[in-house]
């Protein structure tokens, strides 16, 4: 093994939210630049573009400019993913555009993140969009929030300004129930408090942004979880030349939560039969256990008929089996939701038909007001009830993101039109 494998703290996925004006692209550019994820030729290309646009310094925000269509309009349309590594941890940034009409993109970016960086322009303080981003962060269940008060250089690195913003934000965070919030003053433009501390924020003695990221808890490591294993694929190599494999039945999938050991009692849904784990395999090797997010093959003691869409779970904590769910849904499609239509609902590896039974209310994500409605337009967020043709095996989203989330698919176009988070299960 070579030198850089000193310690591997795994991988952290985080989200950056803010508008173009908050300096979000500059912040990401700075993170990539200061962690040496940007190489010379990329830098040369953006230097060229910066000077073409009449700028004197290199505009790091150009690093995250993606599509031609976006460059033409000078805005970000879609979620982009960026990567950097510190040697001890790998990071995946989901960069979501900040505009109100892109709520669906922020929800998309947030769905896989374990930490959210919310940018505030120090000159402007807590704005409507700050509240929107915070609320969506809470809604999508991102457990950790870092409020980055950026552009401190434009307020002369004034501590009182920072303190005022922190106090404002805290009041709002309490109101919506955001619990783990950390604050940091920074200047993405000058690189203060990102990777290096800089010299102009002496009054701040907390960690730099990269320190916060390095020490942020990884997903699945903070609360006790129940074992959930949606079956993706069944391996039955009967025709193989190896006679030992003729009775092989391997259930392939990923441990979505919890952990599993050889000998553990498991229950198979929907048939409800209980057996024990005989072996856990990966590429011919037997493993004593498998943990959250690990893709493996399970072999069971008893011969049970199991196919894709079934779920193997801990016998001690069986999830709800239900044909009625209550959920918060974000509508993603330009075609509005129609309560008269049937949609495909994809939950883990299971796909069932679904219809809206009732829409409880739509949420105004700026004011958090609840409004009555009979349909949903793109970017709307609503609480609703769904009826399903077959049961799903689900947990509440707040208990388990992987088994509490679903998407809705338009039967005719096959487009993904809705994203749902289960809030109630009627069994």
């Amino acid at each position, binding site marked *: 093994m070579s030198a850089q494998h000193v310690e591997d703290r795994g991988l952290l996925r985080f989200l950056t939210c803010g508008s173009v004006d908050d300096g979000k692209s500059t912040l990401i550019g700075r993170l990539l630049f200061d962690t040496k994820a940007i190489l010379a030729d990329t830098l040369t290309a953006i230097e060229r573009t910066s000077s073409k646009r009449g700028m004197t310094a290199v505009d790091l925000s150009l690093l995250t400019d993606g599509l031609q269509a976006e460059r033409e309009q000078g805005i970000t349309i879609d979620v982009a993913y960026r990567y950097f*590594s510190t040697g001890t941890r790998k990071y995946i940034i989901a960069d979501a555009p900040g505009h109100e009409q892109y709520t669906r993109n922020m929800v998309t970016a947030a769905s896989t993140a374990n930490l959210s960086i919310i940018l505030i322009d120090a000159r402007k303080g807590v704005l409507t969009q700050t509240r929107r981003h915070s609320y969506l962060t809470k809604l999508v269940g991102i457990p950790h929030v870092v409020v980055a008060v950026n552009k401190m250089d434009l307020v002369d690195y004034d501590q009182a300004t920072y303190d005022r913003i922190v106090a404002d934000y805290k009041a709002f965070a309490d109101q919506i129930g955001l619990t783990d919030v950390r604050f940091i003053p920074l200047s993405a433009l000058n690189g203060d408090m990102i990777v290096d501390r800089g010299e102009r924020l002496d009054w701040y003695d907390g960690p730099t942004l990269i320190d916060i990221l390095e020490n942020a808890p*990884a997903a699945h490591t903070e609360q006790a979880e129940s074992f959930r294993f949606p079956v993706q694929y069944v391996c039955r190599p009967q025709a*193989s030349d190896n006679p030992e494999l003729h009775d092989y039945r391997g259930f392939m999938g990923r441990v979505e939560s919890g*952990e599993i050991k050889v000998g553990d009692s498991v229950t198979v849904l929907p048939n409800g039969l209980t057996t024990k784990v005989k072996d856990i395999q990966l590429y011919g090797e037997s493993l004593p256990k498998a943990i959250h997010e690990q893709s493996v093959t399970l072999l069971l003691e008893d011969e049970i008929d199991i196919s894709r869409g079934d779920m193997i779970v801990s016998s001690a904590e069986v999830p709800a089996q239900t044909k009625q769910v209550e959920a918060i849904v974000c509508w993603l499609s330009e075609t509005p939701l129609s309560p008269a239509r049937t949609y495909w609902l994809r939950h883990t*590896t299971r796909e069932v038909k679904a219809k809206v039974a009732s829409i409880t209310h739509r949420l105004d994500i700026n004011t958090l007001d609840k409004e009555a409605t009979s349909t949903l337009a793109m970017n709307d967020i609503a609480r609703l009830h769904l009826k399903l043709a077959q049961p799903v095996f689900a947990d509440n989203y707040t208990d388990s993101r*992987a088994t509490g989330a679903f998407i809705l698919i338009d039967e005719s176009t096959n487009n993904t039109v809705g994203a749902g988070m289960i809030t109630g299960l009627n069994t």
Partner: protein
Amino acid sequence: MSTLTKQTLSHLDWLESEAIHIMREVAGQCSNPVLLFSGGKDSICMLRLAEKAFRPGKFPFPLMHIDTGHNYKEVVAFRDKRAAELGERLIVRSVEDSMKRGTVVLKNENESRNKHQSVTLLEAIEEFGFDACIGGARRDEEKARAKERIMSFRDEFGQWDPKNQRPELWNLYNARSHKGENIRAFPISNWTEMDVWQYIEREKLELPSIYFAHTRPVVMRSGAIVPVNVPLMNGELTNLPKPGEEIIDLQVRFRTVGDISCTAPVESDADNVEKIVLETATTTITERGATRLDDQTSEASMEQRKKEGYF
């Protein structure tokens, strides 16, 4: 019993696990997928991931290579050897056949055939009725790829519409398509060049020899190292030097391997994977910046090619 597990997967284990999950989703959701295998380093990783995803069973898909006819013979030989070792079916479709059919027309004899692979790929998709193509593209390669979905929808003409992509949330992938349309699935989307090399090192994966430092005749052409007099499978030489160009013998290795006309090597003395990992950690030039002559045509050329059906 619910348990609190403080342990997490290492970053390579996490990436591997995600890729396995994606491959199994393609196999579970699509009826006739295919895995694109060129013999290049990314697709070599893809084969190991497919083994981890599906062994002891057979792969639930064949392998396919779209051969431009201008590939390094070391890579073509490696491709055939690896497919045979795995006992999996390899389909090869060639841009030269599309040229004979008249569906690919080169502007001139020396034009790069790289972008014309799209035509041959679409013809092969139609011929076999594939509803999903699994490929080894990575989001860190190029900025048009940074916004690519893991399961990316293509219409009947193989076109990618960057402004109208299916939202992709959690790990719930939507690989549904109508007849004639298809899905491009990218299991190693979240990997970087460094991750790929670390994985090759960890898994002790064999690679074609041209990935390691070797001496070959090259010329310097507008700042790039251009290999010349490259022998093809049939013994014919391609990439002949232009009049007046000075041929030098240089120690080089390839960071990326594709059509001979558009992949350039870098100067290097890294003759094993460990040295390459170290070199990758300290390089100052991106993988495509150093080596892909076709991406430099315009700032948006990858975006353009993808819209036209390119991988």
